[in-house]
């Protein structure tokens, strides 16, 4: 059942990050970097795609999945364009996410004002 797997795998990835935040001196920013690089390496080794097939969004929505997209993209890029693909493949595959982040981020920042936490 895809939904159950998505829930517990996605939850587990977040839980691991939480343990790292609370138990080590790693800051959230460092953990995100660690996760995205881990995703890229696992993706390059072909180990992450099976997890995506098993857990669906539970593996693709966490930032680790973003690393996997980059790795898959660069492999496809090398297959199609040879040496140039090393530089174009990763960003090409991630282009949608990056552009969406920039555009939605820009619009949201234009429209909304930060509020004081209470």
């Amino acid at each position: 059942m895809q939904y159950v797997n998505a829930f517990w795998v996605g939850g587990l990835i977040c839980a691991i990050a939480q343990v790292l935040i609370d138990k080590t001196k790693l800051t959230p920013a460092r953990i995100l970097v660690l996760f995205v690089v881990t995703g890229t390496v696992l993706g390059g080794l072909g180990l992450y795609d099976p997890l995506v097939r098993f857990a669906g969004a539970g593996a693709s929505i966490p930032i680790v999945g973003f690393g996997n997209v980059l790795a898959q993209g660069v492999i496809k890029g090398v297959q199609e364009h040879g040496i140039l693909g090393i530089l174009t493949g990763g960003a090409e595959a991630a282009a949608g996410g990056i552009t969406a982040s920039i555009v939605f981020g820009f619009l949201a920042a234009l429209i909304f004002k930060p509020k004081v936490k209470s």
Partner: protein
Amino acid sequence: MQYNQQEYQKYLEKKSPNSPLLKNVLFAFVIGGAICTIGQAVTDFYQTIAGLEESTARTAASITMIFFGALLTGMDVYCKIGKYAGAGTLVPITGFANSIVSPAMEFKKEGLVLGLASKMFVIAGPVLVYGITASVGVGIIYYIIRFIGG
């Protein structure tokens, strides 16, 4: 002084309460899991109803989640969930959107170019720098293996 530096740091660590690990991990698990489940529902929607093929549906779902992450950040909701969820809202792609929108909003007052735009990636920038650099590394290795393998 009663303590030297090392002794004081040890003493301070003992006096400082730890984060409530069990509670934090539980919240991170449940909320992170819930966000991924919503992501799965969105993927399924794109696949079955919009008829996209699987990998395109996944990209579309990620973009949709980024949209909602940005929207909830703007509406002052994301940080309120994040207070409880911790890594549960940090690690999903919605957290990536949050880390882009929040500084952009915050520094809008310093101008649209040098404030909003230039501060947009102060938190998320490292993810792109190291993610893309790592992917180039993967590409080089893959290229060499292919070259040797013929």
